C-alpha cells in the first residue's frame, strides 16, 4: 500500500465514521478530530469514558495528526506495517460486518429489484507455510445465479442504503441459509480441483518428521508423554488445511436487466 493510498484510505475511513477532518499545514498529513465512537474504539482509554459517563461530563475527544513523510517529525508516522493502521483496519471490519443495500434505479428501468447474497471471503492455504486469496461471490436468491468477483462489480453500481422510491424488491426463493450452503459447495468443489502440490509436499515433510520421531522412541514400549505431545505438534505444524473465513457479507437488491447480461458468467 503506497503512502498516497494510505492517506486516501484514512480520509475515507474518518469521513465515514463521522469524524471531523481538519486542515493541515503541509501535504502528506492528515489531521482529524475523532467522534466519540471512534475515540472509544481507537484511543484505548476506558477509564476516561467511564469517568465521563459517571459524572455526566462533556467529553473532549482526541485530535490525531498522521504523517506519511518519514523525514518530518510532526505527527504520528503511519505506514503499511504500523500498528495504528492495522488497528484502523480491524475497526473497519468490526463496524461493517453486514450490510443491506439497494441499487439506485436507472431511468426507464424496471422497478423490480432482485435479491443477491454477497459473501466476501478470505481463503488461506496453510501448513508450516501460508498463503491467502480473496474470494468474493454473489448468489442471486431467486434463480441461483452465481457470480464470482462480485465485489468488483458492485463498485461500478450506484448504491444506497435506503430502498429507492418507486421500486419494490422481489422475494427470494432461496433462503440465505441455503444460499450460504450453495456457496460453500461451490468453494469446496473448486478447491478440490486445484493443484495440491503444496499440500503433497507438506504431507511428505510431516511423514518424514513423524518417522524420525517414531524411530527416536522405537525402543520404548510404553511411549512417554513427550512422544504424543511432539506428535500433536507435528500435526499442528504440517497438517495441510484450507481455512475459509468471512470478511463481510451483504444482502444486495439489484436491477436485473442493467446488471446481469454483460457481466455475469451465469451458472
Amino acid at each position, binding site marked *: 500500500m503506497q503512502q498516497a493510498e494510505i492517506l486516501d484510505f484514512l480520509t475515507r475511513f474518518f469521513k465515514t465514521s463521522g469524524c471531523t477532518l481538519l486542515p493541515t499545514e503541509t501535504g502528506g498529513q492528515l489531521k482529524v478530530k475523532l467522534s466519540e465512537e471512534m475515540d472509544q474504539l481507537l484511543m484505548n482509554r476506558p477509564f476516561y469514558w467511564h469517568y465521563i459517563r459517571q459524572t455526566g461530563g462533556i467529553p473532549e475527544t482526541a485530535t490525531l495528526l498522521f504523517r506519511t513523510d518519514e523525514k518530518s517529525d510532526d505527527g504520528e508516522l503511519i505506514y*503499511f506495517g504500523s500498528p495504528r493502521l492495522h488497528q484502523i483496519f480491524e475497526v473497519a471490519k468490526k463496524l461493517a460486518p*453486514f450490510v443491506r443495500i439497494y441499487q439506485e434505479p436507472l431511468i426507464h428501468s424496471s422497478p423490480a429489484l432482485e435479491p443477491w447474497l454477497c459473501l466476501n471471503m478470505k481463503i488461506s492455504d496453510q501448513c508450516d507455510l501460508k498463503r491467502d486469496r480473496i474470494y468474493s461471490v454473489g448468489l442471486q436468491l431467486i434463480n441461483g445465479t452465481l457470480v464470482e468477483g462480485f*465485489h468488483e462489480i458492485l463498485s461500478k453500481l450506484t448504491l444506497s442504503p435506503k430502498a429507492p422510491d418507486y421500486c419494490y424488491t422481489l422475494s427470494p426463493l432461496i433462503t440465505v441459509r441455503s444460499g450460504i450452503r450453495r456457496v460453500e459447495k461451490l468453494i469446496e468443489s473448486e478447491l478440490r480441483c486445484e493443484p495440491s502440490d503444496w499440500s503433497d509436499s507438506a504431507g511428505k515433510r510431516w511423514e518424514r518428521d513423524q518417522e524420525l520421531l517414531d524411530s527416536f522412541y522405537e525402543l520404548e514400549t510404553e511411549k512417554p508423554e*513427550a512422544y504424543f505431545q511432539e506428535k500433536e*505438534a507435528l500435526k499442528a505444524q504440517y497438517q495441510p488445511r484450507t481455512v*475459509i473465513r468471512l470478511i463481510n457479507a451483504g444482502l444486495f437488491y439489484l436491477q436485473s436487466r442493467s446488471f446481469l447480461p454483460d457481466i455475469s458468467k451465469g451458472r
Partner: protein
Amino acid sequence: MQPILLFDRSWQEDFIKRIENDGPWGKLEMFELAYQADSERIVPSFHGLIAPGMLPKLKLHPHQIETAKTVIEDMHGKAILADEVGLGKTIEAGLIIKEYMIRGLAKKVLILVPASLVLQWVSELNTKFSIPAVPQRKSYVWSQCDVVVSSIDTAKREPHRSLVLQQNYDFVIIDEAHKLKNHQTKNYQFVQLLKKKFCLLLTATPIQNRLSEIFYLVSLLKPGYLGDEESFAKTYKSGIRSVRNEEKLKQLVNQLMVRNRRDDTGLDWPKRIVTSLDMSFSKEEQTFYDTLSELRKSGLIQGFSLLTLQREACSSREAAFVTLRKIYRDKAEPSTAVLWNTIFEKLNGVQSNSKAEKTLDLIRKINDKVIVFTEYRATQLYLQWFFKQHGITSVPFSGGFRRGKKDWMRTLFQNQAQVLIATEAGGEGINLQFASHLINYDLPWNPMRIEQRIGRIHRLGQKKDVHIYNLAIRGTVESHILNLLYNKIHLFEQVIGELDEILEKIDLKDVDRQVQQIFEESESDGELRIKLDNLSSVINSENRHFLEDVHHAASGNT
C-alpha cells in the same frame, strides 16, 4: 495429500439474525473499506518475506533477511541460530516472529531468555518490530498475553510451571540455548515439555564441548533427527570428544542450523586496533608481589592459590587482600605469624596502584567513552573510587545486577558517565556499541571470554573502529599470558568463529586450564616459557591449517 477444508461458520447465525431483525446494518463505505483492508493484507505467496516491507524504520542486513527466509522456508520453523556474537541474532529472531505473526501462523509466542535480558528483548520487539511483547510479571500473563518474555528460571518454577505447560505455543524461542546442553537438567526437561509448533534455539557457541551436547540440542528441536541416543553414539562417537563420520554429521546439523560469520556477511566491519601496554610495578608493589611466593614455599598454599594471588596482586592490592584474608582465617597458626606479618606489612606498604594510574592516563587521553573490564569485584570498587578522586565519572556493571539495574547502568553510561567498569560476569548479553574503547585491565585466561568482552562493542551498529587496550605488569604471570594470547597466537585479531573452530580441532577448549597447569607445574621461569611456547606453536600450526582450508574452500568455489 488433500488439505482439510475448514469453514469458519461462526458469523452465520449473527447474519441471519440481522436479516430477521432488519439490522443493524453497517455502512456501505465502511463495508468497502473493510474489504480493501483485507485485500491489502493478504499474503498471496507461500514464499518470500512480508515483514521487511512492514518495517520501514528498521535497517536490516542482507544476512539477516536471508537467515529468516532460510529458517522459515527450508527449516520449516525449527532451527538453531548460531551466528557469531554481534551479528544480530535478536533481530533475526524478531524478524521470524514478525513474519509468522503477519501470516497468521503464530499468535501465542513464548521467549525464554536469561533474566538480565528480559527487558532488552521486550523493548527491542516493541520498538523495532511493533510486536506487543510483555515481560512476565504476574501469573495471569501466561494465559492472557500472546507474546511473553520470561527467564527460564521463573518459568520452570511453580506456580508458573504448570500454567506454562498448559499453554499451546505456536512459537517458542530460547536465547542462550547452549545452557540446555545437558539433558538431565531441570531446564532441559522443562523445555522438552513445552507444547510448541515452531522453535528457535539461539546460541553463539553451539558446540562447546562434548558431541552429546549437539545431540541433545538437536533432539529438543527434532527428536530422532540424529537418531536415538544409542544409534547416535554408535554412528558418530569414538571417544568423548572425537567424532566419526564427521562430514555426515556436519551435513545433518547444517540443515537445521544457521551460522553466519562476520566474514560472510559482506559487511564492512570496523577495524580492531589492539594496543598492548606493559608497565612496571612500583618498588612497593614489586616487593609485595614477590613476598607472595613465600606462602607457597612455607607450604601454606598450593601452586594454584599462589597463581590466583599473583594475578590478583597484578590487579589491585584490594583484590589480593580478599583472598589473603580468607587464607589467613583458615590457616593462620602461631608458627606462621611472622610470615603473615611480613605479608600484610608489605601489603600496607603499597600506597599507590601503578596500573590504575596508567589506566587513568589512558582514559584521559582517549577522552571518550571507555569500558574497563576487570576480573575482580574488589578492583572494580577500587577503580570506581580512584577515578572519582580524579574527577572521572564511572558506573559499575556486574552480572549479579537485577535486570532493571543493568538497563539503568547502561543508560547512565550512555548519557552521563565516561567509564563503565564491568566485572567478568557482566560481559554477556549487553550491547554497548555506542562506545568504541575497551580496556582489558586484567586478562581472563579463557580466550572465548576475551572475545565475548570485545563482542560487546565490536558488533552491528558500531560505526567507529574499535580500540582494545591490554594492560599487563612486566615480569609477572600477566605478562606471560599477554605474550601468549597476544603476541604468539594473535588472539585479538582472530574472529570468534575461527578461534572456536581451531580450539575445537586441537581439542583445546580448555586453554585456560592448560595454561594454568603450565604455570602450576613449571619449576622455573625458563621451563614456563618453553611450555607456553609449545602451546602457542600447536595453536598456531592449527591456525595455519585452518586458514589454508578456508583459502582452499574459497578458491574452490570460484
